[in-house]
């Protein structure tokens, strides 16, 4: 077994930063009301002299203006599970450790190529999502976790080399139980190498089973004991906006992130999405729902974003928006579109499906359609919007333009070119038609398809044009 660990050192901060597009000083604070402490801060706040662990009062004295947000532990958990769903694309065994995701990659290397290539893919994926990360490889998840904290990019693939690699790790970075680490430091044990040399049974008697088990897991002498992560069957992502948004244009940036996250999640699940709901949350729990429907399951980030934006831009905001939530319950399987090897369409062409989605997003759900013939001979019902063609080839002349409803043909009496063709049907469904159809020419030279009551040649009703 080979395990990769993706350590997320600034998960809370990245989760906040990635939906903002300005880089003013920002800190995350935590702790009781009278003793707020900075727990995370961005680069410009650090440049101003603020530090993690500083009291908020001290920070205010150093910097007059900075933005602060409460540290939200539940949000951190959500981001971690989201990233685990993304990592699920690369391995079927994904586990969660504090501030880290571990995945078993020994079996994935056959598909994704040697470790440097897989590592580059992971880094690219996480960097694109906007999360800072440190990646390490080791034969056990706990060892990978330790190595990731120590050195970004460390890789120890063989079990035999694990002990020497961990030899010089300081105890306070060993991620062993904190109580034991403190007591061991008092005993003069400062590196893992020193700990390895101590007799095991003595350790167990002094520190209990906990340290023993952690040590055995670290060295691969005991199964890792991790709960394997399973991605949920629905996607639910919500973000709170830092200020009230009154126009739709300002929602586009967070929307791009959300649809990007949805696409990453779908890629991890190897699925697609056909319908999702975008909820714009207002004050006092009022919401505006924007439903996004696609013609076929999709998972391309750009397409999801564009479709959702098209729908969103049509929305009139009744009141300011405080938060956004993206909900996707229906996640069908995704079948990528086949492409011709010798594709004649130009480079950078927009696929037809995407074009249809774009038109539908702006013009309406029913705006783009195909017409097919039905088996009904009445011209009003002879064609319908559908995908499968039930019709046959009509032996009699048919016009090329069809009026939705017949209208009286005005002007002088037309010249008959062909006909009549009698149509007598529909007595069973209340829309009975008894008509004689003729091809006629109007005084303006247009060729028309018109009918009159059976047996007469007058009272012309226009049905279509032979354009």
């Amino acid at each position: 077994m080979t395990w990769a660990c993706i350590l997320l050192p600034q998960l809370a901060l990245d989760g906040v930063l990635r939906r903002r597009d300005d880089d003013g000083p920002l800190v995350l604070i935590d702790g009781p009301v009278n003793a707020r402490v900075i727990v995370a801060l961005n680069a410009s706040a650090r440049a101003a002299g603020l530090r993690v662990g500083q009291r908020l009062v001290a920070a205010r004295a150093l910097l007059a203006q900075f933005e602060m947000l409460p540290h939200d532990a539940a949000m951190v958990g959500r981001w971690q599970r989201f990233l685990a769903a993304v990592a699920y694309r690369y391995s079927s065994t994904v586990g969660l450790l504090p501030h880290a995701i571990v995945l078993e990659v020994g079996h994935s290397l056959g598909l994704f190529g040697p470790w440097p290539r897989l590592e580059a893919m992971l880094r690219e994926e996480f960097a694109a999502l906007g999360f800072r990360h440190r990646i390490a490889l080791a034969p056990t998840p706990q060892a990978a976790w330790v190595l990731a904290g120590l050195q970004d990019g460390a890789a120890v693939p063989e079990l035999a080399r694990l002990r020497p690699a961990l030899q010089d790790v300081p105890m306070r970075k060993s991620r062993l139980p904190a109580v034991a680490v403190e007591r061991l430091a008092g005993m003069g044990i400062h590196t893992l190498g020193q700990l390895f040399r101590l007799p095991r049974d003595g350790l167990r008697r002094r520190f209990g089973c906990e340290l023993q088990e952690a040590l055995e897991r670290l060295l691969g002498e005991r199964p890792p004991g991790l709960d394997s992560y399973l991605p949920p069957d629905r996607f639910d992502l919500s973000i709170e906006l830092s200020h009230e948004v009154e126009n739709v244009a300002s929602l586009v940036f967070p929307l791009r992130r959300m649809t990007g996250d949805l696409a990453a999640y779908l890629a991890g699940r190897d699925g697609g999405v056909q319908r999702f709901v975008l909820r714009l949350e207002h004050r006092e729990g009022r919401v505006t729902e924007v439903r996004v429907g696609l013609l076929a399951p999709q998972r391309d980030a750009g397409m999801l974003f564009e479709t959702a934006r098209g729908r969103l831009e049509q929305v009139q905001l009744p009141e300011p928006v405080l938060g956004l939530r993206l909900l996707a319950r229906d996640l069908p399987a995704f079948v990528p579109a086949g492409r011709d090897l010798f594709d004649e369409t130009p480079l950078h062409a927009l696929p037809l499906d995407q074009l249809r989605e774009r038109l539908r997003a702006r013009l309406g759900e029913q705006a783009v359609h195909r017409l097919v013939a039905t088996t009904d001979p009445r011209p009003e019902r002879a064609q319908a919007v559908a995908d499968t063609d039930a019709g046959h080839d009509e032996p009699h002349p048919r016009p090329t333009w069809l009026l939705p409803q017949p209208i009286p043909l005005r002007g002088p009496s037309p010249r008959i070119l062909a006909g009549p063709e009698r149509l007598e049907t529909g007595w069973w469904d209340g829309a009975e038609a008894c008509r004689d159809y003729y091809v006629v020419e109007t005084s303006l030279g247009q060729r028309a398809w018109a009918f009159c009551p059976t047996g007469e040649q007058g009272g012309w009703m226009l049905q279509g044009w032979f354009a």
Partner: protein
Amino acid sequence: MGAVVALSGLLDARQVWRGAAAPMPAGAQPTGWPELDAALPAGGWPEASLSEILLPADGVGELRLLLPTLARLSRAARPVMVVAPPYAPCVAGWRQHGVDMRRVEIVAAPQNEVLWATEQCLRSGSCAAVLAWPRQADDRALRRLQVAADSGRALAFVLRDRHCLANASPAALRLEIEALPQPRAWVRKCRGGVAPARPFPLESAPADRAPH
């Protein structure tokens, strides 16, 4: 005296115009009307360009002119977009002209979105031909369509009223259809050639003739 230059070299480099017109290559987008093909400088529709068709009224032969092209494209599995048609295309009638209706997408667009939708279709590069019926289109709007058709390598057909003939147009080809005394088409402008001085009869296609 200048250096002696071999004439054949210049001719091969195509720097000297020899007066006689080179034989016209067969057009890549034939209209399906042999007489019209012979008269047009590109041997057919101007490729990746805008063609304007001017009508005295709807239903005077504009589809008769275009359907052979649409039939050819749709049978080659190339998508055709019909944006904001004045009436519903009659499936049976189009099929009698050989059009594969599974490749024809009808876009119902309100008048103020017709130009936008047409431009999107043209620019996408995935459509073979786009037919549009814009009510208001000035030369700037048409130029946008011309550029979009060029970048998407698509045939663009804009069908407008005949009174627009008085206005300048950036279209590569302008055809005017006349219904009386018989249906015929005049070439009013064709880029890269002189517009022929006589009209082309738009005789009814075989399917229009009554079989009985």
